[in-house]
């Protein structure tokens, strides 16, 4: 079996993919999830993973550049999208809603989470950074919980989460408002099964799977629609 360390936000999707993969190849995928930061530290200290699916480009690249990652193996498996979500908003939520919104919103911590960074860039582009006060989630799912639990009226969350949980009343932020949230993977040097891992990496980037990923609320590199 292959041990995959995956950023929490992609975990549910990966479970589905792994199930399909097992049916097709009989190969088992063991999934370990945590925040990208924690996974990165663990890998740096020799965690016995085969493949690292980071939620960003930065940590994947750092890993590839360190002696823990196989150089040249880095690849993008998905591109995240963010949405402005105001679940209790009376009207249809659009760009205007965002412009006019006042008060406190929830965002992911820009320092920790790539979705947070994208959120910050978006708000900056729209010149809205000073318009709100913020509560920050350590990651994007915490941010989702802040809003979902009713403690905050609105905020920026991953589009994938909204799709997964049938969230309504959101405005999908155009990708041009921020730098792409590239979720990248990298093969780890400690792996004794690099062949199998390469196979799985191919599978991840295969058309079928990329389509599946797209249906979960991500963009994909090869087949951007």
């Amino acid at each position, binding site marked *: 079996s292959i041990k995959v360390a995956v950023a929490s936000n992609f975990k549910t999707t990966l479970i589905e993919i792994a199930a399909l993969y097992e049916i097709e190849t009989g190969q088992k995928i063991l999934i370990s999830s945590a925040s990208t930061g924690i996974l990165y530290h663990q890998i740096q200290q020799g965690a016995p993973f085969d493949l690292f699916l980071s939620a960003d480009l930065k940590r994947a690249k750092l890993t590839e550049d360190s002696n823990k990652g196989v150089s040249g193996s880095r690849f993008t498996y998905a591109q995240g999208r963010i949405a402005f979500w105001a679940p209790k908003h009376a009207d249809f939520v659009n760009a205007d809603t965002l412009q006019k919104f006042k008060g406190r919103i929830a965002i992911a*911590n820009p320092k*920790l989470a790539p979705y947070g960074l994208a959120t910050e860039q978006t708000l900056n582009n729209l010149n809205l950074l000073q318009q709100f006060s913020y*509560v920050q989630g350590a990651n994007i799912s915490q941010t989702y919980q802040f809003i979902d639990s009713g403690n905050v009226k609105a905020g920026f969350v991953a589009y994938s989460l909204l799709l997964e949980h049938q969230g309504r009343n959101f405005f999908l932020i155009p990708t041009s408002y921020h730098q792409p949230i590239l979720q990248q993977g990298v093969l780890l040097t400690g792996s004794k099964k690099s062949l199998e891992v390469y196979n799985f990496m191919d599978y991840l980037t295969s058309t079928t799977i990329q389509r599946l990923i797209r249906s979960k609320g991500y963009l994909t590199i090869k087949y951007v629609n």
Partner: protein
Amino acid sequence: MLTELDYSAIILTFKLAGLTTLILLIISPPLAWWLARSRFVLRPFIEALVALPLVLPPTVLGFYLLISFSPDNFIGGLWLRLTGDTLAFSFIGLLIASVIYSLPFVVQPLQSAFVNLDKDYLEVAATLGFNSTETFYKVVFPMVLPSFIIAGALGFAHTVGEFGVVLMIGGNIPGETQLLSIALFDHVETLQYQQAHLLSFGLLAFSMTLLVLIYGVLKKRQQRMIDA
């Protein structure tokens, strides 16, 4: 080296830990006293309830607190109506969570001291004309003072080290809910190792000093008992 945010996190943390300890030292003694003496049928149940924050992973505890703090739910709604503010992401919310979270650490040593207290002395106190309250303050309290100090120190230390809960309900608002433990976590996560080490070291040095001081004081008292 340390940023302004780090300093404000340090100040906030001590404010929170101090207030939490204060509140705990007010509510725990009667609770522990009751737990140590009561014959009420539900006592073990309430005892277990107090001990619960020990068993639940802090993030999970935080998650449930987040839900109950929501204006849609009873507590959070009540609070919103009373103060016009949400309980989550506020200092008060953190304070409430910290009190719940650290409660067993203060109640346990007190209760254990109360249970071990020789009933003979309480009888003497009654013959000296002290009612239960007076007995508690004039006899029990001074007799178990070392346990009070330990209890307070544990409560304080545990609040300083609190992380999961704060992460869940704090919202990381600088100067309001951004605590030392979270700042430290941020530094680790963002690979700012130097700041992380510095903060860790500071926290360590401080805690060590505090604990060494407390245990030093206790040692004197303890030694007296050993010597006598």
